[in-house]
């Protein structure tokens, strides 16, 4: 099979058994790779009702056909598992250099199963794979672990590690790599922690064969040329994702004080241009990326370094906490990364607790003495540490995510727990941006932005409109954009540099030997989208429409300040969006795929 490494590595943490099997050709044909491989194997292999943190759950890491190739941004891998945070599907994408290394070592997927009796790490050196004792690393921060392995094994080894957050089963723990890249969302780090697997260390020295070497070289070079010729390459590279911060603030999309508004009076202090001037020292890219979005920063006040903060972290740990100080945001980012918790979910949890505190729902007794007001930097740092260590009453409460925390505390705090399906919402305030709101409601992992970043479309066509075109746009994005995660490449070259997506078609063909148009690939995207839906249904008996509801804040409480002051989406409009969405997807009124739809997508068999 050209373009693939050819094998799947299976590691049973309970028995220590390590085996390899050929990558099934039908799986490559129907699901291509990356998150396609992830959901297919998850659906097939993890039994219904498995405890996400128990021995039956699996953590599946997959590369794609474009990973490790001469393709701009071919450095993404997918981490799929049953989410301990949501009880549904989790898939987190990770950049950096791990993916390429894993593929050169010979693996399309690594399937981690069972629970180890003691802390271990997995060492992969091409075909030689070992589980080794990690007792001395347990409790350490992810950065320290990476430094230690780089010293021990050398620069050619790539490392993915959890911090204390993963060990302590914080339900949104992340996995860290390359001093600042993460598999962030959905609690993949907690699953790794539950398996007592501290780190994966990998080195690969093999080559990957392609179907048509000359065509591949040409197509790859053409993609690089398009990126380098793109208008805005230099500007984008200078600021990365932070370039949109000021725009989000201007249009009322910047999450502010637990999403109570979309514009922040201290915005300028956390804009991309401020960050670039004050703390950025190096541009840092993933494997093969000509337009590196990673900004490596030095926070002089704290004497620390971090890759980031990128836009999401600026939103969730800056404006959403009322913090108008880029060095503090950088330091909060570093703490969360090193301790191994997702900055988006953690930022939401802290913001929710701050709102509870200011409203008197939580008192100093509940916060372990923290003066938890919006803008309190020291309290934020302290709370992030408490969460990662599950320390104190509040730390332990918030480690379970904002939905569970609000259910426990009650007193109306459920109305401002900003989440969908139990996953905290990422960095766009959606009081008045109906496609973006729908994108969050229907995203396959919970309230995450990256499947369908539709907010610019809202601004183009009218932000509060509720029309079928908007719904169609969201569905198209959901079928198309995640295909980059399937192929094992970054989508930002297409998104930000607007390179012609058809340039990928000859590259894919030369690599795999199979001609596929984008329409073909979108059809795969559609099948994958429906399969993830089936997974949610299988794991949750009451799954349906009620799981797709947004946080009430977006239909009950118009912001008092900022660009969206007074604006809100009505509850009726929210339901109308869902009606149209279900209809266009071929799902019933409760949001479940109809038998006819499953038949059409060739999913009827796997569903039964």
């Amino acid at each position, binding site marked *: 099979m050209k373009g693939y490494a050819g094998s799947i590595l299976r590691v049973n943490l309970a028995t220590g058994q390590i085996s390899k099997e050929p990558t099934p050709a039908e799986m490559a044909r129907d699901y291509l790779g990356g998150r396609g491989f992830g959901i297919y194997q998850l659906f097939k292999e993890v039994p219904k009702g498995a405890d996400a943190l128990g021995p039956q759950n699996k953590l599946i890491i997959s590369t794609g056909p474009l990973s*490790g190739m001469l393709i*701009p941004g071919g450095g993404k891998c997918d981490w799929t598992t049953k989410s301990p945070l949501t009880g549904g599907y989790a898939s987190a994408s990770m950049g950096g250099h791990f993916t390429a290394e894993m593929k050169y070592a010979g693996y399309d997927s690594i399937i981690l199963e069972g629970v180890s009796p003691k802390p271990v790490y997995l060492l992969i050196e091409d075909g030689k794979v070992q589980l080794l004792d990690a007792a001395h690393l347990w409790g350490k921060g992810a950065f320290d672990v990476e430094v230690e392995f780089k010293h021990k094994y050398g620069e050619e080894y790539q490392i993915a590690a959890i911090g204390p957050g993963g060990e302590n089963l914080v339900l949104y723990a992340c996995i860290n790599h390359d*001093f600042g890249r993460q598999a962030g969302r959905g609690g993949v780090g907690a699953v790794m922690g539950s398996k007592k697997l501290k780190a994966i260390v990998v080195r690969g020295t093999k*080559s990957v064969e392609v179907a048509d070497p000359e065509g591949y070289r040409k197509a790859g070079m053409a993609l690089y040329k398009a990126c380098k010729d793109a208008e805005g*390459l230099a500007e984008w590279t200078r600021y990365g994702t932070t370039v949109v911060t000021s725009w989000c603030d201007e249009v009322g999309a910047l999450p502010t004080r637990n999403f109570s508004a979309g514009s922040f009076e201290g915005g300028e202090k956390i804009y991309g241009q401020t960050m670039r001037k004050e703390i950025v020292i190096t541009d840092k890219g993933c494997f093969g990326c*000509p337009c590196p979005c990673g900004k490596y920063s030095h926070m002089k006040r704290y004497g620390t*370094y971090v890759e980031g903060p990128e836009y999401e972290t600026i939103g969730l740990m800056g404006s959403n906490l009322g913090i108008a100080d880029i060095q503090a945001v950088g330091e909060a980012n570093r703490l969360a990364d090193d301790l191994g918790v997702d900055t988006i979910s953690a930022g939401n949890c802290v913001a929710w607790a701050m709102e509870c505190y200011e409203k008197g729902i939580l008192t100093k007794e509940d916060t372990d003495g923290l003066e938890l007001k919006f803008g309190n930097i020291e309290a934020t740092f302290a709370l992030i540490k408490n969460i990662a260590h599950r320390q104190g009453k509040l730390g332990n409460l918030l480690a379970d995510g904002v939905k569970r925390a609000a259910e426990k505390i009650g007193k109306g705090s459920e109305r401002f727990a900003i989440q969908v399906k139990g996953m905290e919402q990422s960095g766009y305030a959606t009081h008045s941006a109906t496609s973006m709101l729908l994108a969050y409601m229907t995203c396959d992992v919970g309230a995450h932005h990256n499947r369908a970043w539709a907010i610019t479309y809202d601004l183009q066509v009218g932000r509060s409109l509720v029309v079928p075109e908007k719904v169609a746009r969201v569905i198209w994005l959901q079928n198309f954009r995640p295909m980059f995660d399937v192929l094992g490449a970054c989508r930002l070259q297409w998104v930000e540099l607007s390179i012609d997506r058809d340039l990928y078609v000859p590259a894919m063909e030369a690599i795999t030997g199979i001609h596929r148009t984008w329409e073909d690939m979108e059809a795969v995207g559609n099948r994958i989208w429906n399969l993830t839906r089936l997974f949610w249904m299988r794991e949750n008996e009451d799954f349906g429409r009620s799981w797709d509801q947004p946080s009430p804040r977006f239909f009950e409480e118009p912001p008092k300040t900022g660009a969206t002051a007074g604006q809100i989406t009505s509850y009726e409009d929210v339901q109308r969006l869902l009606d149209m969405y279900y209809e266009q997807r071929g799902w019933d009124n409760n949001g479940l795929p109809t038998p006819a739809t499953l038949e059409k997508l060739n999913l009827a068999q796997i569903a039964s």
Partner: protein
Amino acid sequence: MRLYVDSTKCSGCRACLVACSLNLFQENNPKKAALNLIPHFPAPGVYEMKVCTQCGDCAAVCPTEAIKLNERGAYYVDFDECNLCEACVPECPEDVMYVRAELANAAWKCNLCGDCVAVCGTGALWIAD
């Protein structure tokens, strides 16, 4: 003509390394490239990239005269004539003369094909006199 690098612009992406291995060996394998990327993380947080200056020191010591000049005026390794003696490796002031018998059965170095420059998006690499 030779290759130049401005390490302060390098983002450590390794695109150049893949392009290089593809040119030298017709393989995707950044471990078989003739540029030397040295990341310094987490502190001070910079990349260091070393490239061949075409100084010729490697060619001067090669006992089999396997390191020759090509039409671009660059030294390259004639794979057929290299016997893996490693005499050239310690001579290289930039650490970009490679012998790794486990990866390839000849030494390799930069032959100034320019493919790395073509893929580098940050302008860190260029060719000049």
